[in-house]
């Protein structure tokens, strides 16, 4: 049986950022990819959504105070 990690209540939404979105994000923050927080390529959720090293994953978490909080991580080896 194959289960989707994303279906679990404790796993926040992970999605791969499109090329154009990546550019926009990096420009907005004024940083290079390397200055973003990292996530391992072997991380189960990264494998599930099929992100490759160099991709940026957008994580949308639920927050008690802000409803949603957005986080970005660079996929690394």
């Amino acid at each position, binding site marked *: 049986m194959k289960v989707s990690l994303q279906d679990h209540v404790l796993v926040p939404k992970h999605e791969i950022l499109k090329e154009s979105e990546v550019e926009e994000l990096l420009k907005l*923050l004024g940083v290079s990819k390397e*200055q*973003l927080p990292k996530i391992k390529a072997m991380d189960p959720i990264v494998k599930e959504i099929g992100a490759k090293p160099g991709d940026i994953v957008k994580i949308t978490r639920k*927050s008690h*105070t802000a409803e949603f*909080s*957005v986080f*970005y991580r660079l996929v690394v080896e």
Partner: protein
Amino acid sequence: MFPKKISAIKFEVLSPQEVRRMSVTKLVTPETYDDDGFPVEGGLMDTRLGVIDPGLKCKTCGGKAGECSGHFGHIELAAPVIHVGYAKIIARLLTGTCRECGRILLKDERRDKFIREIERLKSLGQSYEEVLKEVFRLTKAVKKCPHCGAEQLEIKFEKPTSFFEVIDPEVKEEEKLTPKDVRERLEKIPNEDLLAFGLDPKAVRPEWLVLTVLPVPPVTVRPSIILETGQRSEDDLTHKLVDIIRINQRFIENREAGAPQQILEDLWELLQYHVTTYLDNEVSGIPPARHRSGRPLKTLAQRLKGKDGRFRGSLSGKRVNFSARTVISPDPCISISEVGVPEEIARELTVPIFVTPNNIEIAKQIILRGEHPKASYVVRADGKKIRIIDTNKEELAEKLEPGWIVERELTDGDIVLFNRQPSLHRMSIMAHYVRVLPYKTFRLNPAVCPPYNADFDGDEMNLHVPQSLEAQAEAKMLMAVQEHILSPRFGGPIIGGIHDHVTGLYLLTRGNKEFSKEEALEFLRSVDVSEIPAKDKYTGKEIFSLILPKISIKFKAEVCQGCEVCKEENCENDAYVVVENGQLLKGTIDEKAVGAFKGIIIDEIMRKFGAMATKKFIDDMTKLAIGVISRLGFTIGIDDEDIPREAAQQIEETIAEAEKRVEELIKAYREGNLEPMPGRSIEETLELRIMQELGRARDRAGKIAGRYLGMDNSAVIMAVSGARGSMLNLTQMAACIGQQSVRGERLTRGYAYTHRTTSHFKPHDLGAKARGFVRNSYKSGLSPIEFFFHAAGGREGLVDTAVRTSQSGYLQRRMINALQDLKVEYDGTVREQTSGVIVQFKYGEDGVDPRKSFRGKAVDVKRIIKEVLGEVKE
């Protein structure tokens, strides 16, 4: 200059060749200075090692004192000695390798497996200490070398630097391994095997861990000081090096003279001792080397270690100028934003005045002044500092021109930073305005005690004077006391009324008390109010309303007894506070309204009218409270805890009854009739039931006492208003102290193995008395046995606080280290300062400043709704 990025730092062990290579000379004589006071050649103060006396020149580089940073020398040790710092590694190597062929006592495949594991952990940046321990454990058990087949003997390591080989474990026959033997064995270990011991053959050869040549640090590292008597006093390191050279030379002489083996061995031991204590003078197992005066010497390890060591003392912590420290004491008459500074300190500290065409006349006058806010120095445009004295002040005032700096003594209105350690949060350093006052203590308003966590039992505080206009502006804007009334810790006020402030306002506002015009004026004497309505009688609530800004709020006071259905405005306890448009209509003002941590009114004023208005309110509120309590009088005495005979009788009966029930419980337990509680053993059940029974008895006793003490009792007033103390404290004073406990259990241990707490009881006595129940009150006094139990319970509290403070202190150090380079940028992201790495995309995930939050929540929705609906009058 471009900053360079350090990618790695690698530590290696100095080889003997390296020590000789970097040495400028070999040192051979223990003498330091000759009769004329010149450094002896080949001695420890040899001028080739650098110079410290002005006038002399370094023989190596020609530099004068201050120019030449010094050069290393070396001592050729007559016999090898163990380096204490490496003794443990040496022990592992000796145990793990063959005594004949020097190979590791593992088959090659096994060895390679361990090496790969170490490499793996290294690449992950993790500790591989566990692997090394495993290698040690395995090799220790090997009896026969897997490479040459030689029998292995057990190696015994005796701290700090001795090694033995166990020849026959039966008769405990042991043979000492001299450092020379050790070194020969280490020489035989091949490079390929070293990796399995966690050593990098490129960085270290194991035989280098046994010293044959000792580097001697330059004299600049161990300068001698000239005492007032003109005598030279050498540095501790020099003393130790003298000892080493002396014994070293004696060893050589004796060996050349063909002295008996025993004498040579003794000298060798002595040499080992001196080298060991030179490296570390706090090694366990050997006595520390001492100075002639009996003081232990501070040698190499002692220079680095501990609080005053190089790392924590010199690199992380430095001393500062323009600061002062003294004992603090309270002054309720000054504002919370002020600090009282003793004249003596104000005359010592200075503030720079940067002279411009606009202020040059004022600056001249300050230079010419003869008393207190005088100028102490002028700094010329070229940077030269001149002390102002009576004879040169006219001349200096004349010469004064824009660009100069006049250093003026601290005076009223200057901004300073005030600090109390441990500085655990931002409110531990706040900016205050100076008030120069007589006497020798710093004075502060008691309302600012909570953020500093200060009291006046001898606490000392530090004061710093900002030395630039930028720093002064920053202090005034960002660090001022009123900017810290709300705490980022919990989004509520941390500065507010304490102790008598709370009691005073409670006395003023409770019920519908009326005060005469004279009384009202006296209450308000020191308070800053401009208009008082003309009346003959004032209620306390009216007087309090005079200092209240125009706020509207409703809340339950601290005195609220939590009735099942709150009658709100109609509370007959006057516990429901109603403030409308700055008028206190109903309710008692107490800790909940103006207290330092709860202070709902303070909170409300801060949100509505801002920092300055709140500061004024706190100043007025504390002064009003002090005015009231001074006029009405408020004391507590021993007879305040007196209870009538019938109350004492009732308490006595309650406790006797409970003790009887405890006896019954014990009886049931002994007869096996006690029903265990779910998930508990019978013993645990008994203990719990007894604790419950006695706890209830004390509560009941407290209730009885409370009934008779009444609401006009001073201690009761303080407890219910939240000013100080609790009803439990009162119970213990007036009725019954109750069960003493250690680690949450009744007292069980004591008096040897006889199963009783003290010898006054029969063994196995489980009764209330025998297990630390104190039926007396503090007022009635404890029996000797009760007193002993009370001390046992009290000690636990002391030990706990002692342990907790040290632990939280270390936790704080670690956390600051981890977080010190993080900053919230203007775009709301949290970034690491040097690398620009992003840590959070929005501070705290929601971008909320906890200080501006509503008690931790981002917004106070209720309040917004009320304001929108117009329920709160603006």
